[in-house]
């Protein structure tokens, strides 16, 4: 399935970072023939942690997701949803 590696990587890392891993939800959204978006939801208190100061951790997620997307030949982006 398209975006499967991206989903696995993003989910693994988000759960490892979160205080409440069981509350982590990653929804993959099809954005075209070779584009996917990973929407990440966490417990309220984990949002700051997965985004990080000045979005540093969020940007690291995006870089890693794109690297995973490269494995599948697709563009991958990540958004964090409150």
């Amino acid at each position, binding site marked *: 399935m398209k975006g499967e590696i991206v989903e696995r990587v993003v989910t693994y890392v988000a759960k*490892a970072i979160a205080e409440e891993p069981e509350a982590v939800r990653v929804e993959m959204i099809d954005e075209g023939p070779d584009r996917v978006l990973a929407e990440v939801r966490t417990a309220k208190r984990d949002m700051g942690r997965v985004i990080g100061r000045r979005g540093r951790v969020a940007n690291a997620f995006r*870089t890693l997701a794109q*690297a995973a997307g490269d494995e599948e030949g697709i563009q991958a982006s990540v958004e964090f949803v409150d």
Partner: protein
Amino acid sequence: MEGEVNTRVEGDIIYAEVTGDQTEALVGPKGAILDAVMELCRTMVHRHSQSGARLRLDIAGYAERRREALRIYARRLAEKVVAEGGEIMLEPMNPADRKVVHDAIAEIDGVRSFSEGEDPERSVVIAPDEDDEDEED
């Protein structure tokens, strides 16, 4: 992709080295993926230990090659300062890179180094060593 991770702990620093076939792919352009993986691993470490443990991650020897390039660059600038006098300010660097430069400069007679400015714009300055002042971060 086959790889292995070796970790060791020295003081409050965790060193993790990823080696193996094709692990260069994990470094990314200008080390972008390496930096991202390090940022995420750091965040994980902080989540699992409340201590201020620090993490240094290297993949396929990239970080060490980069540090060596930084040392060579610092030495070259130090030679210029010794030969021509005056101070040279380097481009802004993160604390880990500044430490590499300070350590390299500390081994050279006739120059000293210090940092100026505030992160993320803090920069190392290499200057002639007139009064035996120690280098400082």
